[in-house]
């Protein structure tokens, strides 16, 4: 298995390489300049600025300069936050997003699996219907609508939770809930669908015929199989949720990495954009690999190749 994991990791290198190349070239060839302001910058100063950031000369030259640095683990300096290296920004913001993301992920898994499972058992009864309706709402209400509503209720009207900011445990609650809801909804729907399918299978009928209690059938046999499709979903989902969300981070003032995915591109910050793309790609590759390993562990029919 170690050999397979190693091979997968090696395969990730060309993927990363292509992703970074495309990102850098796209940002640099878009119309717009990272340094432009309302006041025109004299040509001499613009030249100097571009030199400082290794953004002068041909695109090929700039690209090679950048790739050279990336190979040494140096993601260069942000053109937007001019006293900070991209490494520094990621080191400061990624952990924040991961703390928030993992809390949200945990919530999503617990509530998603519980309610999804419950809905499957109460198939076509009112419990099932109301859970599925809630899940549908959770999926379709965008977070930029949900978050202000929660803020208005819990922060401004009831004054129970802070509306904004980061630094104390109570500040994590509202954003984590908002971030988790669409994931929880998807997980609930997946769990329900898969469990319903599994409950129809022969081995469940056998288990029931053996005289096992309904609890034992459900937890020891059905759920273990029903959880499989969830693994495939949760790998990429984890990569997404742990690297933050622009909407949640902006609305709640979370100093995470999520806002950089959009803002660095808007600011034409080539290094920051490439930096966050690298982070996201690494997460995506790792969590997909992780999901595959989990498949292998849980389901013996699966072979890692």
């Amino acid at each position, binding site marked *: 298995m170690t050999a397979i994991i190693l091979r997968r990791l090696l395969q990730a290198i060309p993927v990363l390489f292509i992703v970074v190349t495309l990102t850098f070239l796209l940002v640099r060839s878009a119309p717009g300049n990272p340094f*432009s302001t309302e006041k025109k910058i*004299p040509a001499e100063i613009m030249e100097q600025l571009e030199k400082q950031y290794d953004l002068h000369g041909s695109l090929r030259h700039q690209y090679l300069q950048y790739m050279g640095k990336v190979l040494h683990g140096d993601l260069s300096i942000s053109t937007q936050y001019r006293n900070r290296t991209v490494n520094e920004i990621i080191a400061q913001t990624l952990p924040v997003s991961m703390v928030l993301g993992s809390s949200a992920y945990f919530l999503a898994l617990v509530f998603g699996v519980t309610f999804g499972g419950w809905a499957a058992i109460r198939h076509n009864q009112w419990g099932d219907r109301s859970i599925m309706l809630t899940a549908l709402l959770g999926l379709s209400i965008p977070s930029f609508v949900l978050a202000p509503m929660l803020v208005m209720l819990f*922060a401004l009207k009831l004054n129970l939770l802070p509306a904004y900011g980061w630094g104390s445990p109570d500040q994590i609650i509202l954003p984590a809930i908002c971030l988790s809801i669409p994931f929880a909804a998807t997980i609930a729907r997946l769990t329900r669908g898969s469990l319903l399918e599994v409950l129809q299978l022969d081995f469940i009928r056998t288990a029931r015929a053996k005289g096992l209690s309904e609890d034992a059938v459900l937890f020891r046999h059905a759920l273990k199989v029903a959880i499989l499709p969830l693994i495939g979903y949760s790998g990429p989902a984890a990569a997404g949720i742990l690297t933050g969300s622009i909407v949640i981070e902006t*609305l709640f003032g979370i100093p995470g990495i999520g806002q950089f995915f959009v803002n660095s591109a*808007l600011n034409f910050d080539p290094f920051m954009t490439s930096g966050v793309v690298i982070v996201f790609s690494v997460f995506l590759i790792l969590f997909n690999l992780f999901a595959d*390993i989990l498949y292998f562990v849980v389901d013996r029919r699966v072979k890692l190749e």
Partner: protein
Amino acid sequence: MAFSGMAKRRSRRILFTIGLITGLLVLFAGFFYFCGGWALSTPADLTICNGDEPQTLDPAIVTGQLEGRLCLALFEGLTTRNAKGDIIPGMAESWTISPDGLTYTFHLRPGTKWSNGDPLNAYDFLNSWERTLNPATASQYSYQLYYLVNGEAYGMGKLTDFSQVGVKTPDDHTLVVTLTHPTAYFLELTSFQTLCPVHLPTVKKYGTDWTKPGKMVSNGPYLLKTWRLNDYILLEANPYYWRPVPLPRIKVLPTSTSTACFNLFYSGKTDLIIDKSSIPPELVPDLKNEPYFHANPFGGTSFIRFNVKRKPFDDVRVRQALALALDKKDIVEKITRAGEPVATTLVPPGNASYTAPQGLGYNPDEARKLLAEAGYPNGRGFPDVNLLYAGRGMGTQMATEIQALWRRELGINSIHLRGQEWKVYLNTQQLIDFDLCVSAWVGDYNDPQTFLDMFVTGGGNNDTNWGNARYDEMLKTSESTPDVAQRMQILHDMEKILVVDEVPIVPIYFYVGMSLYHSDKLGGYEPNFVDDHRWGEFYLPGKKP
């Protein structure tokens, strides 16, 4: 046998899963630890919503207003401002100006120190100005020092000997500055962050990293205690500052959305919203009646640029017609809604010695007549043109309204909206790749010059392709006129050319500064025309220094 093998395999699998989960948990616990954000929110005497995350705190590099405010809490120039916005002595205790207005002799306050206790002297200013001008620093605002003799030549790299630049230090406490021409607002410039001194040994030691907490050495009322990206900045009173600072700790929250900002203020988590971009525009009409809402006129103008090289805007009658037909009252009442005064001139009111000319008001009949004369009666045959704007804030609403107003008054149906992202918009504007463009300008200092020199032929921020030899000549004359009244008269005549005779631009409205705070909780914050509020002036009412 078979059974025990299965059990063994199973227990191994369970062990493996447990191992994986534990590993993950340890990983996350590590991140929780490194995150370091669990310390309870730091208390402060005043919490300010200052707008976005600052791009840098290096006073020589800073270009934005929000960064400028922070820089001026950390650094202080030869002069500074009081709460009213008037120029008062800062690092310089006094100064004398030669009768021709060209030589300024500043006498530094004796015994002033940097925040690390190092003495601050005239050489610090000289060397910091050298750094700002030095092309290698790539300061975008270095032109603030082009007023100095040879400043521009040094800044452009055409002169490498700094001793030829018009700044000298006869002794530790005296700085003699020689200007190329009399500059009425030079004492305002010396209060601006670009001309603030920096502690060069620190800059040399840490390079671009010198603006970080623990490394930065400053000379203003505050020093930088903490700076966490997109999280908060903590300022602490500088014990070496030359006068006592009333508020020991100020916390600054970078907030990118105005709704979040307002929520913070409304729930009592912040004491002051300092920037109008941090107040939700749709709430302004309601907030206007609240006791904590404060508005003041300030030196900025919103206007439309014509590209005078493109048809039909090469015809001055068309430009005048569009200017006369724009119902600006409609725009300020329907779109901006903060009580902005309608503008018919470019220079905002606020400089007592300047009288603006009578600009083109709202006169649709005259407009229709002019447009017909130009060959487009009732807008018939008007070519397809685009209206460039930045799609942020009120940008889209403004552009749509302008388009509708010209259709209503002049029957022009061929103006197409062209919204772009901020940075792309700036690029397009500088390339003058537009027909019409919604723009704005905020003055660097309180003098008509900062608005009018923009439209000199081929000027870096002209962006209209417009040029007028007489206008250029007048600007030159005004710069060498030491007499205030005479100079203002020339500027008045220049503005007349700009907004009445030639009309390469249509002024729309003058900016209004807005802030939210409870007057019983914050003193030392007064509305002023330059919208410059020094944080060192803030105090808690009842504890007035």
